[in-house]
């Protein structure tokens, strides 16, 4: 019961935050020089005073800032994110169309980074003096320091050009026109490079964190207790140490959704992956404000949702959190 209340409170907080995000974005776009009408007029190659006035009335930009904001918020609350002037389609549908690709990319990268990062970190903590720990350290330094778009391009050069075993970009092979399982495999094939590229940054972070926290946990009193019980080393590591060592990794992973989304924008651009990031980049260049606003808001929703999931996960891993709020 108390648990449900906590989740409910989090949801209410999240909605408040999202409203704030919506207001800020709207205000910024409102403050920026040039509005939707001047864009349209620009594309039309000029228009008469009356046409401009009519357009301003039609798009509601003749009203005061507060009125416009009120209308915008009311619309958003009702699920209407407006219409893209470039695509002339509802923003919501355009975004919905791109969400699966981005979520697929994020989930694949996150899973890869978490599993591989934790495994590398734990092994490096277990054998801190060997070549393996040094190699993990090198990989993590590379992941930290290489710009993600560049490592993506380098992987492309390597695995799509020099040793052409992976497709250079896109979501699936349109020409082949595979269906069902074949299509899923095709998508997976296309997913390998972008997901690996994106995972590389976070793999670096998680392996480091996992190593540091594993080293700490392995020196803890309760691991000594577990050993004193005569548990096999396997049980000591995987049952007693790992779960505790994962706590900081989970916490930090929860804070990384925003950074992951940022990485996704760049990775999608490199690999022409038809996700939200690519759409955002294009609509920023086209000054498609309604679409930008929609994407920003939806990204914030994704990040918030990710944080909520982390919160729940954390409570599962660490029983100490359950009792207090």
């Amino acid at each position, binding site marked *: 019961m108390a648990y449900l209340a906590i989740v409910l409170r989090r949801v209410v907080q999240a909605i408040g935050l999202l409203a704030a995000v919506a207001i800020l*974005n709207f205000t910024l776009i409102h403050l920026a020089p040039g509005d939707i009408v001047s864009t349209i007029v620009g594309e039309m190659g000029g228009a008469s005073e009356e046409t401009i006035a009519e357009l301003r009335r039609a798009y509601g930009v003749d009203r005061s800032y507060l009125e416009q904001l009120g209308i915008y918020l009311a619309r958003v609350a009702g699920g209407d994110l407006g219409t893209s002037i470039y695509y002339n389609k509802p923003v919501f549908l355009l975004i919905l169309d791109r969400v699966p690709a981005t979520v697929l990319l994020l989930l694949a990268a996150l899973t890869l980074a978490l599993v591989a990062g934790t495994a590398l970190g734990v092994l490096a903590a277990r054998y801190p003096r060997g070549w393996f720990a040094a190699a993990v350290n090198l990989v993590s*330094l590379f992941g930290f320091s290489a*710009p*993600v778009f560049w490592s993506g391009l380098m992987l492309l*050069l390597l695995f799509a050009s020099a040793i052409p075993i992976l497709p250079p970009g896109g979501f699936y092979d349109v020409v082949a026109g595979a269906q069902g399982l074949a299509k899923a495999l095709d998508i997976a094939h296309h997913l390998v490079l972008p997901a690996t590229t994106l995972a590389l940054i976070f793999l670096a972070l998680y392996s480091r964190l996992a190593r540091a926290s594993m080293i700490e946990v392995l020196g803890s009193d309760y691991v000594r207790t577990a050993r004193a019980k005569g548990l096999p080393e396997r049980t000591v590591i995987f049952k007693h140490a790992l779960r505790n060592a994962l706590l900081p990794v989970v916490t930090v992973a929860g804070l990384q959704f*925003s950074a992951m989304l940022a990485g996704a924008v*760049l990775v999608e651009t490199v690999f022409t992956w038809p996700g939200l990031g690519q759409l955002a980049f294009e609509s920023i260049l086209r000054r498609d404000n309604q679409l930008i606003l929609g994407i920003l808001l939806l990204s914030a929703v994704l990040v918030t949702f990710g944080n909520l999931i982390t919160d729940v996960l954390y409570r599962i891993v660490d029983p100490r959190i359950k009792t207090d709020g």
Partner: protein
Amino acid sequence: MAEAGRSPWQEAWAVFRRNRAALIGLAILGVIGLVLAVGPLLYRVDPFDIVGAPMTPPGDPDVLLGTDYLGRDILAGLVRGGRPTVLVGICAAMITTVIGITIGSLSGYYGRGTDRMLGRVVEFFQVLPALLFAMVLITLFEPSLLTVTLAIGVVAWTGMARLTRAEFLRIRQLDFVRSARAIGASNARIILATILPNALPPIIVSATLATGTAILFEAGLSFLGLTDPNVMSWGLMIGSSRNYLREAWWAVTFPGLCIFLTVLGISLVGDGLNDAFNPKLRQR
């Protein structure tokens, strides 16, 4: 072994000096700094000028590192393109540090309502998708080095704020802070003169690493073309040449390598500082 009569800073430097990785990082940064400082004076080719045949491979005596798809000198781009990247990175990191310290220290020192309110602000900026938001900011207000710097500074400070807050929460309850309060020091004095100096080590480490992050951020924005198109930068070079990756790999590889090495140097130095400030960790 700790020797008597040395300040914690000297102690930290003594540890840092023995850290091979950190010294390598420092050397990398030294070389890059030197090249960026005097390189443009010695190698006077304009990176926007077309100096040879398009896509000349590296090794040509006239254009040592080859040319891009337009025939522009890659080496000239490398020598000149580092300045904006590094400069924007440093300035943006300074902005994030100042904002982060301000918010974090107020939050950690005053606690209660202040902490809750500022906590919301931090949460807000965490939810905001940083890169997308910076992209929007930059396109709305003319892409220039200034807007890029400000945009990065404004979106990237939450980590620093959280760190500073945690440090303040920890130090606030130590005895010397209590005694400062007991002798009637003002809040401002306690924050700036009593707590902050003791919170500096992790803040310095974090600010160092933040510079690396800001450089990567700048490179990403430039790669997307969201920067001043009249200023050559490493990210911009990669962005403009990426469609010719197969034909002219060098035009993409070398600028990326420069970014990588710069950030690598910063990361190594940051790690070295971290170890130097936390000698306890070494003994493990």
